[in-house]
């Protein structure tokens, strides 16, 4: 099966900013969390992916088709929730949905109605009078009602309350039940994607620092506590070290090799805990020492 997304040497440049070259893929059935601080190039990546921006070089393929804005096949396969929600402002939500529905053969009014109920949205309300959160809801309904094969989400939970966030996450889990679909999820709030993502990609200042399986990342990155009288330890994979007396607390990006080294030094009473994705993201995006790159 074709990759849901394929970035091939894609570069996008503005004055004073360069995104890429990006080279990575997203397989169907997977959820990729695209993590980076504000201004790192996440939204630009999304805009290149959806054809709103043309890259200077390289290309993006969606299910094997180059995302030429003049071609329609790939566009009907995607659902997009961007950082800006664009509608006919003086029309009601229902009228806006009706307008969009005519362009998608796979559009389901029943699914749209179901989502309106689940997200508790007043369909008869004029879009111009909607709150930021409700605009995001309408955008999500619009993106989901045609049952897209690829869902592209750029900070989709921005402005949503916790109840709707939870409902939205449930809907995404339903989307991914079908293994032919994929989700590309950009955010700077890592707590949003911990449960959902299979893979994580970290972007900083326009370049991709790391793309890996979430489980691999959580396996490799650990906090280790131990005691040692030797204060001059050289341990592999360590990205942060705190020493208080003989008590060491280290953070490692390569748990296995750090553990092996500690055992070789005959250090016992080792306790280890997993790091949160947020902690890992901070280390990777800060350009932490020895962080492996792609």
């Amino acid at each position, binding site marked *: 099966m074709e990759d849901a997304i394929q970035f091939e040497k894609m570069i996008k*440049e*503005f*004055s004073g900013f360069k995104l890429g070259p990006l080279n990575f893929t997203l397989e169907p059935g997977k959820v990729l969390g695209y993590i980076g601080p504000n201004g790192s190039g996440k939204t630009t990546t999304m*805009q290149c992916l*959806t*054809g*709103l*921006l*043309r890259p*200077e070089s390289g290309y993006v393929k969606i299910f094997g088709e180059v995302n030429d*804005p*003049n*071609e*329609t*096949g790939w*566009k*009907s396969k995607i659902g*997009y929730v961007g950082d*800006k929600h*664009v*509608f*006919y*402002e*003086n*029309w009601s939500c229902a009228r806006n949905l009706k*307008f*969009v529905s*005519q*362009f*998608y053969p796979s559009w389901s009014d029943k699914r749209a109605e179901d989502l309106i109920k689940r997200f508790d949205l007043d369909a008869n309300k004029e879009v111009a009078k909607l709150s930021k959160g409700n605009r995001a809801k309408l955008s999500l309904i619009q993106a989901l009602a045609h049952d897209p094969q690829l869902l592209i989400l750029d900070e989709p939970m921005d402005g949503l309350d916790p109840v709707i966030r939870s409902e939205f996450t449930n809907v995404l889990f339903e989307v991914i039940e079908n293994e032919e679909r994929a989700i590309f999820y950009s955010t700077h709030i890592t707590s949003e994607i911990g449960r959902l993502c299979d893979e994580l990609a970290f972007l900083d200042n326009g370049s991709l620092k790391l793309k890996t399986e979430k489980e691999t990342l959580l396996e490799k990155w650990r906090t280790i506590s131990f005691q040692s009288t030797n204060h001059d330890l050289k341990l592999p994979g360590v990205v942060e070290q705190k020493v208080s007396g003989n008590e060491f607390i280290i953070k490692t990006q390569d748990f296995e090799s750090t553990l092996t080294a500690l055992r070789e030094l005959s250090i016992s009473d080792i306790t280890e805990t997993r790091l949160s994705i947020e902690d890992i993201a901070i280390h990777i995006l800060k350009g932490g020492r020895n962080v492996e790159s792609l």
Partner: protein
Amino acid sequence: MWNLFKAEVSYNKWYLFMILAMPLLFAFGMQYGFKLITGVDFFEKYAWSILVGLGSYMFIFIMWQMRHSERRNMQHALLPIPIVDIALARMVFGVLPFAYVLVVLSITHQLLGEIIEVQLYRIFAQLGLLFCGLAFIQLMMDIWSLKTNMNEKNWFLIIGSIGCLIVFISMFAVFEILIPAYRQLFREGEEWMFFLWGLILLTASNFVFVKRSTFLQ
């Protein structure tokens, strides 16, 4: 393309209705000789067409501002339709109110005869000039859209586009020179030339739109 166009017409129906109603209202007022102040004709022979024109442009301006502020191009570019269809829908929607005003003026002229003294026999020339104006605005907006996306390559694109505009304007100058010769051949037929040039420029603006490197506005 027609779905986009229909949506735009439906969304702007009140503005379009006002543009539609104005010439008829004024023509009606003229027909029955309404007076604004005792002894002063409200609809002077030339003033009414100026009022209708200004009023129409005001509503057209509001519609275009709204289209721009609501990022209509971005909204449409995300739909599974070719960009060229968006360009065509934009063009037809832009042309429609202008064309309508002129057609209504023409009809009222026919109906009311000598009461309205407007040079309506040049309707195609006027339409052509309006098309040129619209194409120019569209081209400038397309060029301006590069601002969000600027690097050296785009600078060259901007310079190239401005160069093309200068060429177009120069061609108009040539055109003016050619008019006397054209008149000799076809008599009062230069309005067709303006009309043709309007269509050529609109086509050029559509081409630039399709080649845009950003659809964020």
